[in-house]
């Protein structure tokens, strides 16, 4: 996202909540990690049952 500096302080709540941002990063990382891990588990199980 392009952000331009106008010299004015940012609105309240905008980029001023590093602790909130940490929860956001954690949630996205864990959720996507679970989906990727499950996709890999399906792939491995399929290959194993096919004897490859």
């Amino acid at each position: 996202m392009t952000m331009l500096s106008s010299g004015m302080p940012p609105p309240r709540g905008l980029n001023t909540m590093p602790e909130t941002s940490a929860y956001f990063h954690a949630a996205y990382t864990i959720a996507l990690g679970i989906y990727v891990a499950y996709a890999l588990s399906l792939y491995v199980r399929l290959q194993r049952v096919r004897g490859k």
Partner: protein
Amino acid sequence: MRISWLPTLAGAAVIATVIRAVFFTPLEARQGAAQKIFYIHVPAAWVAFLAFFLVAIASGVYLWLRDPRLDRFAESSAEVGVVFTTVVLITGPLWAKPIWGTFWAWWDVRLVSTLFLWFIYVSYIVLRGAIESPELRARYSAVLGILGALLIPFIHLSVYLFATMHPMPIVGKPSAPSLPIEMLITLMISLVSFTLLYFAFVRARYDYAVERDAAAARTEHDA
């Protein structure tokens, strides 16, 4: 190497959704970045409910027709539903902590009933692993699959029936959605992407079940 179109499309859609949610959707003024958890939490809950609803439908029809394809579909959808419910149960508390001030509240009916739903379908998977006879396994798990799905309307209506920390619906309410249009579009794209991912997962899991059963039949035939 053959490339399957459904997993490819679903993967691309999920990546595009995450890029849009993270970089091209405005921050919410009071919650900041944490509100963006909404775009993975709500679709995961929607897909989990869809998955368990389809388990119940397939199980009900299985008890009538006794077609093993329906049992395989129910088995596949239940496992994928557990994966999505796990995401709901992890992303929810991560959103709740900065906004509500706590990861979990045992008095919140929606939280606890969602955890209960997760336990029911984990039990469904355990039950399937514990019964050797395919017919008996399919019949018992069909009954559990149907009973578990009865929780879904209860979880959905819990915000109306009990005092919970969860807000009232802001999109799926009788009047027009109160979500700003940019956020609403991201949510809609997200719902479609994760639904595609559900179908890709179920398709792959169903293929695995077919091959596993064929391998078991070959082993039995050879013995």
